[in-house]
């Protein structure tokens, strides 16, 4: 969240005005649905001057979770097509991670329509997307943006919890590594301070 992105209000308004095409059912290989999410993702990434990652597919296999994930990815595409976000030049790897892992995480909580119609979920999606792209809403500090996102998003709360647990484990491992006899014995230096 080190960079300032577009304003929250601007992106919330954009999401509230999502065209129905971006909420339609994703097309699957079995012929269900009517929006080719994979193609839409390709177009949006092209707007950001980012190529399609090889081996990645946004065509759902027909299972419930894969269809929901593709639906959320489609909604995120609408958000990412915002000209101000395009001008902010988010990094390619972050865009792809948002459209794959990020979309799957959000879809695990709610369907795409909920992120569009429910004001709280709408704010969650906007803040989540900005955060994953390394942005915070214009006019907010990192601390404000972080606090608001963790208050709104159970995914984020979970992520923070896992990250802090990992950090604690790493810190403990470092302390243990430094306390080993082999670490204490040190290694040769040509001078000693």
């Amino acid at each position: 969240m080190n960079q300032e992105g577009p304003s929250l209000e601007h992106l919330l308004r954009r999401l509230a005005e999502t065209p129905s095409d971006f909420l339609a059912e994703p097309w699957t290989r079995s012929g269900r649905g009517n929006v080719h999410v994979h193609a839409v993702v390709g177009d949006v990434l092209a707007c950001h001057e980012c190529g399609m990652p090889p081996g990645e597919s946004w065509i759902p296999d027909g299972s419930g979770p894969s269809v929901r994930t593709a639906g959320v990815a489609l909604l995120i595409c609408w958000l990412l097509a915002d000209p101000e976000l395009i001008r902010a030049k988010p990094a390619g790897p972050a865009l792809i991670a948002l459209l794959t892992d990020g979309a799957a995480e959000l879809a695990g909580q709610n369907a795409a329509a909920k992120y569009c119609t429910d004001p709280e979920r709408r704010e969650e999606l906007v803040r989540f997307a900005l955060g994953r792209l390394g942005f915070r809403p214009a006019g907010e500090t990192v601390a404000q943006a972080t606090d608001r996102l963790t208050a709104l998003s159970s995914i984020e709360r979970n992520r923070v919890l896992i990250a802090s647990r990992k950090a604690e484990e790493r810190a403990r491992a470092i302390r243990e590594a430094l306390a080993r006899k082999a670490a204490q014995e040190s290694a040769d230096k040509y001078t000693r301070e």
Partner: protein
Amino acid sequence: MSTGEPNDQERYPLLGEAGRRMLDFLREHPDAPVYRNHSGNRLDAEDLAYVRREEAAVLSSTVGWPRGGHPDWLGDFVDDCCKEVPHYAAYAPAARFEELPTISRADLGRDIAAFVPDPVPLDRMINFQTSGTTGHPLLLASHPRVAAGYLAYHKRALRRFGVSLTAGRGDVGVVLLGHQLTCFTYVSVTPSMDEAGLAKINLHPAEWRSPADRAAYLEALAPEVIAGDPISFTELLLITPKLRPKAILSTSMTLLPGLRGELEKTYDCPVLDLYSLNEAGPVAVFDPALDGHVLLQPRMFVEILDDNDHSVPHGKRGEITLTGGFNFCLPLLRYRTGDFAALDFVGGEPVLRGLEGRPLVRFRRPDGEWLNNIDVTHVLRPLPLARFSLHQRKDGGFDFSAEGPAAAIRSAHEALAGLFGPTARIDTRPFPPVAGSAKVPQYSSAFAVSDA
């Protein structure tokens, strides 16, 4: 990953026949001291290739940055720190480098784990312990490659004095001297110098079968380089072994020109006064031609800051603050060292002037005039003192302790009397002969800075 006592295979993974013979020679010489500890280079073939690559880079790179600017690697370094190092990752974004917070020894002491980058593997981590000047021990994360990396900076410093190291198979590359009641002592070999020997010895007589063995052993080793501190060098001058080192490296404490002169005269070689920290390795070496310490690390940026983390103008004294370094286990981002100097540029090269180990301390003369510790250092400079400390009591009197020849201590007392005036009460006493390894504050005063 071994969790117990390391074995020789772990200490010297590349040990060859020449190295084994060298270790036996160092340990089993009839005049050898008691070796109390073990150490090793810990370098495997990949490490050795890394150390050689780094050495070539250190010796071929320039050191410095445009006056008033930053080195070109700084931006990427800061980005990496803020991504990978837990402590720095918590920083709020800063538009300018100078807006980033500073850290100090106390931060490292609180939780060293927060300063180790996330990608650094832990299985071969080692630690350096330092007692420092405050008495609070500090445990620092490091790696065998970092320890071996010191040599590159020493070579860079030595090159400045026209010395290149050539010790190899069958030679002793370096003897590190200590003179303390208890001292970490060991033998090893240096793979990047074809297994030249390395010995860290304690000159304290209790560590030897006979005090006379000290000179005999040193003469048998005939090291290419002698490293130590002013206390051990003072003892060396008393023992006076017949040695022809290419250079003497002094670290840890202020090396007064008087003692440096004695060493140069006795051993007819350059004596390098290194500014080196456990936290950062060798930072600078004193160059008499420039009357200052020149920097040694191509990837080390130095700022001189006031108490409010603001840069002071060039030529003004302030706290030496380091960013960068070669210890990839402990990247430093605006690390306030607790040491003070002014930064100057000579021919585009950054030079630290008037390096002093701690903040300015002011002393009050009986006539009310204030002098600072630099004035004191100045009058004591010509004397061959191993170390000294000066404290001003609340009653205005001075406690002065010094270690060195009796005549030098007497001269120091007279010099201080001349500086502070004939009515100043100066109680002079020698340091206990061996006061252990703890650093003693060189200057202190019962008067608060606000009294000045």
